[in-house]
């Protein structure tokens, strides 16, 4: 689920990051009003919990294991606003300190896992729980299972769309994708099938088993359970509306920067739909003049001075030789020690 670097264009990353700013602002504002000062360190503790939950290997069938994100669980335990901040911080640490998920893609990853996942998951959990009839324990767990399953898949769906718009918006002069090459017709099923079949279930199982334990042992520690306060889903409407506008405005923003927008005409979209199962843009008009053998020689070192190329190649060659030599000596060193 963590989107690495270089699969999304910097423009997409910037838009996702911008979309997250009001979300974070909203979450922090909400937290300040709903959390007593003594609960403030809870954010950090929640983020640590979230980070470790993502690292937990959940047992699946036959000795295999999978990872959960735990977004909905954290929203249920700590409240959705605290979850948004906590998961964001956990993702930041993963990206910056552990290199898990791209640093530029941080905004996009937060959007999917710290915004869509906990808020959707929690909203589904809340509304189902109320519908099932308030305080029944089992009903709460079923609601949590469904909420986390839907939340996870909603997040995966957004990730799929982010991947999917890349080849439509960003390509070179010859029409080849510069970032993720899979259009929505490929990226959506590729993301959704594994999440619907496996990851969503891992998420639901993880959520339910942790929640069941906490409910039995110390139910008053769960967000909103002690005070009996009921949060209205409507309190999040303004922020959802704002983000929806931002998403809708994204293509317009890109239009302004003039990025290959003109090529994304109606014919292109039609082509994607007709070539559904294969890659959307099998180069119909381009295929004749563009063979495999062509690119490398005249494409590569064309625009650059031979001297520069020579120097760079020399540096790379020497550096790689030294690295190779050092790596070969590594086992020998270990043996000596």
């Amino acid at each position, binding site marked *: 689920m963590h989107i690495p670097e*270089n699969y999304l264009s910097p423009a997409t990353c910037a838009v996702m990051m911008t979309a997250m700013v009001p979300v974070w602002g909203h979450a922090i504002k909400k937290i300040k009003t709903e959390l007593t000062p003594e609960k403030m360190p809870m954010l950090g503790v929640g983020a640590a*919990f979230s980070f470790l939950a993502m690292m937990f290997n959940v047992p699946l069938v036959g000795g295999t294991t999978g990872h959960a994100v735990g977004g909905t669980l954290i929203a249920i335990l700590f409240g959705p606003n605290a979850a948004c901040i906590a998961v964001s911080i956990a993702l930041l640490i993963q990206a*910056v300190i552990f290199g898990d998920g791209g640093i530029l893609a941080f905004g996009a990853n937060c959007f999917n896992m710290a915004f869509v996942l906990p808020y959707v998951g929690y909203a589904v959990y809340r509304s189902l729980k109320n519908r099932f009839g308030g305080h029944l324990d089992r009903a709460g767990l079923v609601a949590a299972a469904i909420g986390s399953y839907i939340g996870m898949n909603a997040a995966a769906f957004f990730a799929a769309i982010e991947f999917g718009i890349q080849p439509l918006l960003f390509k070179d002069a010859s029409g080849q994708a510069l970032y993720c090459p899979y259009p929505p017709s490929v990226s959506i099923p590729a993301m959704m099938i594994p999440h619907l079949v496996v990851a969503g279930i891992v998420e639901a199982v993880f959520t339910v088993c942790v929640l069941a334990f906490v409910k039995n042992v110390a139910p008053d520690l769960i967000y909103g359970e002690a005070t009996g306060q009921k949060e209205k889903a409507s309190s999040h409407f303004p922020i959802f509306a704002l983000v929806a506008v931002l998403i809708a405005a994204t293509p317009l923003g890109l239009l302004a920067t003039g990025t290959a927008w003109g090529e994304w005409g109606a014919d292109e979209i039609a082509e994607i739909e007709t070539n559904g199962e294969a890659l959307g843009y099998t180069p119909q008009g381009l295929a004749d003049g563009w063979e495999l053998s062509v690119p490398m020689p005249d494409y590569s070192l064309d625009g650059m001075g031979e001297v520069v190329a020579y120097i760079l190649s020399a540096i790379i060659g020497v550096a790689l030789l030294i690295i190779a030599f050092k790596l070969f000596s590594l086992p020998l060193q270990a043996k000596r020690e």
Partner: protein
Amino acid sequence: MNELPDWMIEDDIYVPPKDGGAFIVKTLQTIAEIMTRIQVQHGHEKRFALPATVKFVALIGLLIILSLSHEPLPLLIFAAFIHAYLCTWSARDIWLILKTALFAAVVAFVLLLPAIIFSPAGLIRCLVIVIKVFFGVEMVNIFNHTTQWNHITSALRKLHIPAVFVFTLDITLKYIVLLGELIDGLLTALLLRSVGKNDGKYNTVGGVMGVTFLRSAEMNQQMYEAMRCRGFTDDY
């Protein structure tokens, strides 16, 4: 004090059934990795260390440039600089950097393979992406390897990121260690007591993470009290 029951005194012959407890061992390994990464970050070079802020801004700048570069020349420049720098390192450190970068590149290649097969004309573009993934991971690794995490948080603070956020980030890193040790202990105890077939694996997973949550709530309370004792006035 009662006498020991008979079953405890008798030698029981016990043949354990087959059952995968792989998740325990795997999670223990993951946690151990995290802990060593956070606790003992032996920075590679300390002598000419740039301020973490400068490095962090430079890293982001370079990542953006890398992301925007699609032509061979800028990529060659990246390759030259990264590897010229890297080759001055010791073998063990180089391997730490290259290991994950190579893994990420292989994953990227596998992910892009269908695109290459269905549309061979996109081969070059896909390879460029694989190469960029490789360079990107190398750069982030180099940054991590030369920077202590507490310097990273102070770098963020200097970038005028809100204090609540940086404060929370600091607490988070501290509690990842504390809660990580807790999970490590719980799973070790679980491993030692896993002597057969656990039919309630999910109850156990819920128990381990549930206890962790309860303890984190407890720690939160203690932390707040400690902060108040040291003159903290609810002003984040």
